[in-house]
C-alpha cells in the first residue's frame, strides 16, 4: 500500500466545515420526551484525547453526503462493527466565525486543513487546553446564532447503498 501525501491548503474564512455530533445517545439516558436543545452540544466540542484538535470536514472536499458515507465506513472501538451514520447529525460552522470567536486569551483558534488518506477534507480546530471550556461555550453560542445549524440528509438510502458498495470494494482490495 502506498501512502499519498496530500498538500494541505489554506481554508478561506468564507468556507464552512462540518462537525459530526452523536445524537442517539440521548435516547439511552435522557428521560422520555426530553431532548436537548440542538445547540446544547458543549460536550461534543471536547477534545477527549487531547489530539491535535477537533476533527471537522471541510465542505469544499466533503459534502454532507460524503461526511455521512465516511462515518459509515469507520469501525467502532471493537474493531469489528461499523458506525451507524444514522446516529449522527452534522453541525455546519463558518470558518471565519470560528477564527474570530471572542476569546479572552493571547492564543488563537486555528482552523487548518489536515488531509488524510481516506478523507481529503479532514481539518482541525486547534486551541490551547487551558481555554477549552471557554472555546466550547463560545462554539455553542456561535451555533445557536445560525438559522440552519443542523445538517441531515433527506434520503439516507442512497448513502447506505454507497457505504455498502465501498465496504465490498474494501474487502476485495
Amino acid at each position, binding site marked *: 500500500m502506498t501512502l499519498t501525501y496530500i498538500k494541505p491548503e489554506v481554508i478561506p474564512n468564507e468556507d464552512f466545515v462540518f462537525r459530526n455530533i*452523536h445524537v442517539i*445517545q440521548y435516547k*439511552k*439516558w*435522557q*428521560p422520555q420526551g*426530553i431532548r*436537548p*436543545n440542538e445547540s*446544547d452540544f*458543549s*460536550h461534543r466540542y*471536547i477534545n*477527549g*484525547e487531547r489530539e491535535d484538535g477537533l476533527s471537522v470536514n471541510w465542505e469544499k472536499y466533503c459534502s454532507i453526503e460524503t461526511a455521512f458515507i465516511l462515518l459509515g465506513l*469507520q469501525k*467502532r*472501538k*471493537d474493531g469489528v462493527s461499523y*458506525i*451507524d451514520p444514522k*446516529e449522527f447529525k452534522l453541525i455546519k460552522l463558518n470558518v471565519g466565525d470560528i477564527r474570530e470567536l*471572542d476569546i*479572552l486569551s493571547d492564543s488563537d483558534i486555528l482552523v487548518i486543513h489536515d488531509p488524510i488518506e481516506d478523507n481529503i477534507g479532514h481539518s482541525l480546530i486547534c486551541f490551547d487546553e487551558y481555554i*477549552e*471550556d*471557554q472555546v*466550547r*461555550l463560545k462554539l*455553542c*453560542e456561535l451555533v445557536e446564532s445560525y438559522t440552519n445549524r443542523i445538517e441531515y440528509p433527506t434520503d439516507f438510502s442512497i448513502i447506505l447503498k454507497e457505504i455498502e458498495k465501498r465496504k465490498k470494494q474494501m474487502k476485495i482490495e
Partner: protein
Amino acid sequence: MKTMDNYIAKSFITRQDRNVMTQPKEKEWSYEEVLETPFLKDYVIEAQGQLYKNEKRAWGINEPIELTFPSIFVELDTEIISIPNELTCIAKKIEDSKGILSLEDDWDSQGAVRISPKTFNNACNLLIDYSKKVLSTYKISINVPHINPCNNGSIDLVWKNEKARLLINVKSNNEKIIASGYGYLKNNAQPIQFILEKNKPTLEHLVFWMQNIS
C-alpha cells in the same frame, strides 16, 4: 390493631413536587428503621391524614405509611444528601441524569469512555454544594443546568439564560482538580474562569457570580 414495634409496615415515598425522594419508590420500613435512620427520624410521619412525629402509635399490619419531608434527599452512590425544598428542580435533574451511569464504553460509537460513578457523584456534589451556597448566601435558587456526558469520561454542567452562560467540566481521573469552568455575561462581560480543587472550600467569587444563572 397492633403497635408497629413488631411489624414491618409497607410504605411508599411520595414523589410529589415538594417531596422528591430518590429512595426506591416502594420500600419496607420497620418502625425502628424509621427512627434509627438519621435522615428520617426527625421528620414528620404522615399517615391516614394525621401527623405523628417520632411517635409510636397503633398501626395496621401492612398498612401503607406515607412519609413526607421538609427537605429533599438525593441518593448518590455512597451517600444520601439532604437539600432544601427550594432546590427541588436540581434534585429532579440529578435523578433524571442517573441514566448517564448506564452508558457503556463507546457510547458515542466513536470510542467514548464510560462515566464513572465517582465522576457523577463529584458532579452532583459540586452542583448541590454551589446551589446550596448561593441559596443560603443570596436567597436565590440557581437554574437547573444541562448535565451532559463527555467522550473523555468527564461531565459538563451547562447553564444558559438570557443574560449569562456558564460551563463547569467535572473531570474524571484527576486526583487534584475536580473541575474547571468558564462563564460570561452577554457581550463577554464579567468573564469568570476557575479551577475547583479537591477538598477546597467553595469559591466565593463563583458563588457570587452564579447569581447570574438564577
